[in-house]
């Protein structure tokens, strides 16, 4: 018996230690009818389960982690490799909620209890988590906004306020959130990777795919400064692309890693070796399986695990990772407004350089809310304007000439968090342009308060540097 105890002890340890294991979502039957707008059958799939395998012995080691759930999806591993977040339905017809599993003892606890679906959780670096939650709206189409909360579910805060829907978020090494964002009002078919700080400030475009391509996976950051993700060609009945872009210059560094590979990708996860753990299938008739893909190769790589009856998607590896930066926050919920500065409404980037005499000049801007105008404001002679707007309310801007004609816009939805100060170089400007070093005329006066009919907003003063 004393001889047997150590053996039992080690077996028990090895059974409970999931370090190095591959965790993925297993979907029974055909994977179809993916809805990239509502997330149905894409971000949350009924009857899906989360499994793990030992990559050294995959066929013998497959174990279901989420037996107690009717459905479970979207596993994400903590930075210390000890916990896993996932979204799940306890019972059929339940709404999807966020859970966490201790990967040592495999015990789970519910983090989010909400009336609406909460999906796509991911760890933030400051002991909080980020997730997408369905927000119902009387006047607008329902969509998923981004929320953060503590790891015990407390202090839940909404951080996105535009009429867009957000899915498949990841956290960059620089501490910002990267999320698939699609405008739902007015409805647009295009989605982008939006990047923003964890307090919801400084939201901007990170990447947008080519015409006809749809972003369908969580973007993952590799050790060599690249982002890898999947662009689906379904809209054009084309093959999917496994894409990498450089973090340093995402808008102009797209490389198609799978140009020689036909078929469909679902997810990609970087491995320490430099290879990618991908889920891929050759055709509609096949099932997604796990492959180890070498970006230098033209083939999907060796099969890690497959199952003829199930699709394997959203694979991640249980391991320690570098914690992203913890970004400070300028948000102060005691303040009701934010400030927006545009340096030159008539500047749009390289294309407007040298053409200043040919392009019409904007004399005013109109700020548009969801269902009303917030006011028209004259811009300064240098094209700058400086506004104070209600925080957490989406708005758009269009430019107007001296005759009242709309020149450009409206732009994409913007929102400001309480106490946020935000700057733009121009209008629909090239995001790679930096400001000219000059004093904008508009900041020599107080900001124009919007909406113009609101004369006073009570808020506490903020003392910053």
């Amino acid at each position, binding site marked *: 018996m004393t001889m047997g105890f150590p053996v039992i002890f080690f077996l028990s340890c090895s059974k409970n230690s999931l370090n190095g294991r591959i965790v993925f979502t297993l979907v029974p039957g055909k994977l179809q009818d993916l809805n990239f707008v509502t997330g149905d059958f894409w971000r949350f799939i009924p009857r899906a389960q989360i499994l793990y395998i030992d990559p050294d012995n995959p066929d013998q080691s497959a174990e279901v982690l989420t037996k107690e759930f009717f459905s479970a999806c979207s596993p994400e591993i903590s930075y210390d490799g000890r916990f896993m977040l996932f979204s799940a339905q306890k019972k059929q017809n339940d709404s999807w909620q966020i859970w966490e599993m201790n990967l040592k003892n495999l015990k789970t606890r519910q983090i989010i209890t909400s009336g609406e679906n909460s999906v796509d959780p991911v760890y933030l670096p400051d002991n909080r988590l980020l997730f997408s939650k369905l927000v119902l709206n009387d006047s607008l189409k329902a969509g998923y906004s981004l929320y953060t909360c503590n790891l015990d579910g407390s202090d839940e805060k909404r951080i996105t306020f535009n009429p867009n829907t957000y899915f498949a978020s990841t956290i960059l090494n*620089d*501490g910002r959130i990267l999320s698939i964002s699609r405008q739902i009002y007015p409805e647009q078919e295009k989605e982008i990777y939006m990047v923003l700080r964890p307090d919801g400030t*400084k939201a*901007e475009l990170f990447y947008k795919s080519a015409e006809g391509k749809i972003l369908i996976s969580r973007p993952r950051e590799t050790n060599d400064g690249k982002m890898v993700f999947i662009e689906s060609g379904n809209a054009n009945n084309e093959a999917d692309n496994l894409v990498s872009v450089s*973090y*340093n*210059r*995402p*808008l*102009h*560094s797209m490389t198609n890693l799978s140009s020689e590979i036909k078929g469909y990708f679902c997810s990609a996860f970087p491995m320490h070796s430099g290879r990618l753990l991908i889920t891929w299938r050759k055709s509609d008739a096949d099932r997604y399986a796990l492959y180890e893909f070498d970006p230098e190769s033209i083939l999907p790589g060796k099969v890690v695990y497959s199952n003829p009856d199930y699709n394997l998607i959203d694979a991640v590896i249980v391991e320690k990772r570098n914690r992203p*930066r*913890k*970004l*400070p*926050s*300028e948000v102060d919920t005691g303040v009701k407004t934010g*400030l927006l*500065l545009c*340096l030159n409404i008539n500047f749009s*980037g*390289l294309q407007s*350089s*040298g053409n200043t005499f040919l392009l019409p000049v904007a004399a005013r801007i109109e700020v548009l809310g969801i269902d009303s105008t917030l006011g028209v404001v004259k811009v300064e002679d240098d094209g700058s304007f*400086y506004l104070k707007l209600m925080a957490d309310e989406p708005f758009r801007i269009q430019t107007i000439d001296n005759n009242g004609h709309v020149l450009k816009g409206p732009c994409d939805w913007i929102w400001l968090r309480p106490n946020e*100060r*935000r*700057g733009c*170089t121009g209008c629909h400007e*090239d*995001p*790679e*342009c*930096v*400001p*000219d*070093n*000059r*004093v*904008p005329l508009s*900041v*020599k*006066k*107080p*900001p124009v308060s919007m909406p113009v009919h609101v004369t006073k907003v009570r808020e506490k*003063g*903020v*003392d*910053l*540097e």
Partner: protein
Amino acid sequence: MKITRPFKILLLSGFLIVLGLIIIIPGGKWARKHVDYITAVTDHPLGCASCHLYIQKNNFVSKLINADYLSPFKMVVSKDGDRLYVVAQERNEMLIVDPVNNKVLNHVRTGVHPHSIALDESGQKCYVSNQWSDNVFVTDLTIMKVTDTLKTGNGPAGLALSTDSRYLYVVNSFSNDISILDLQSKSEIKRLAAGNNPSGIQFSPDGKTICVTSRRGLIAPYGTPLLTELTVVNSVTQRISEHKNIESAHMMENIAFTPSGDLALVTLIRPKNLVPAIQVERGWMMTNGIGIIELKPDGRIIQLLLDEPNAYYADPFDIVITPDGKKAFVSSSGVDYISVINIDSVRAIISESSPDLLRAFSNHLGISSRIVMKRIPTGSNPKGLALSPDGKKLYVAEQLEDRISVIGTENLEVMKAIDLGGPRRITVARHGRRLLNNAGHTFQNQYSCYTCHPDVHEDGLVYNMASIDMGRNLTNTQSLRNISDTPPFKWNGKNQTVYKQDGMRFSTVLTRTEAFSYNELDAISAYIMAGIPNPPNLQYNPRGKLTPAQLRGQVLFERTHDNLGNEIPIFNRCVTCHPAPYYTNKKMANVGTLAASDDSILFDTPHLNNIFASPPYLHDGRAATLEEIWTLYGKTEQHGSVNDLTKMQLNDLIEYLKSLGDPAYEPKKTDIYKASFMHN
């Protein structure tokens, strides 16, 4: 009752425990309160060493805990490539290095704070500029001895030797001029005016033109576009042929010519000090790049960024160009990288682009993808660069690594590193210096502390720090030299310690990324608080003896009665607020300079050591000169009683102020003033 021994021991132990608790519990509470106040947080570990050991200025303790680093800076390569001559700036030495066998062969003493080296044509003699000694040492390399000392202007930095080795051109970085030394007569024959804080110098390949770069912009009212001078000298006539103004850029540290001589490339920073500092994303604080100067009549000046949309390459320092003219190497000292530039691509861009497009490129983060071939990682703080004579090897002085790395210029890979033999251990203060010089603690590495505080001083710029509203609180950058004994910090005096200054709020409003860890804060504080000396004030007070005008000025500075015999109120006497040795009483004051765009606050009284080297003046930099503090902005008599002074008296007062130097060089003063953090 007989008290047994065990009972005695028990009694004694109990007494000691009770005594300990009496001391420890309130002591611990006091320590917690004390540390909370110093660090401005409530959970800093209660370690005493951070403040009471690492910042010690006591020579004995300081020698124990600190180390004597080399800090290689600039260097030159011998004609045969067999020797490197390296300035070891912190050690006040020149190292002679065998780059083939990776050995340091000799250490030759230099003056104080050496800067650059020039090698004569024969290779048997070299010249070392001693920036804090105001001279150049001539070293005979055959005997490894200093054989001569040549007097220069103030703060000699860059050196350039004429092709016939007859003349040595010395850039005087503190007196803003260029000394031309005749090496036969060993004397200065001419002095030419240069830009503000000039530094780098280079002869054109044909030897007829010399270009001198400047680090600081021309002093101008806030809001005026930034202009920094590139001085062009005709080496034949030894006269200035042109003062070129480089727009919206400064910190042009060094320059290199293409072998064909048609272009000169300079390193530069494009600050955004006129734009409200509301975000770092999208290059809203700083961008870094190169300037390309076309050396022909009506030649253009083009600027291209080395930065990328999500990655910045802070503090470009040195630049060299391969003998074939194909590649340029730039040391990005704030991010520990060498950027390799394809010069043919640069030529293509400037030939095919209209002036408006070129101007737009100077603000475009995508342009670097067209000109940068590769980024090569280095050790800490790469500064001086030198190429082997065949152009196949690039030597990089890693200043805070005490090392020279060697990079192959064809495969663009690091071949090896030459250890210069500096101390192995990295002290807390050294770690702090590395942090101060590295942009890794700013969002996307956009800038480092050094960027606004070059040489731990200040960059001469006024920034729109954008507090409550975006147009408010213009802030004149302050020097970090020798500030340890002059709290509070910041113009509004709200930070009682360096810890607080560089803590959480610093990351929230300035660096916009994760705050320094406590260990890192300890290190930065140790570096700053241990005392970073000012250069000696050789320009205005070389021997510690005041001139007659300065003495008259001192009388005025310390006067108690005005010219009419009226007593000057104590609070309005210069010496009240500005007593030696730091010339600050560390209290807040209203000197009548509150602007409409300022919040209603008093200002911390700044220290005046080496004040001559810190224009512009006042909290928002409105005074371009010391004189303007009173001639334009002192009319209310709140900033000292001066309106009765004659112009000559004001001149004397200014001369005295200019003579104020670092306490280390002045007669000992014993008054110690307690800082005040009262704001009303």
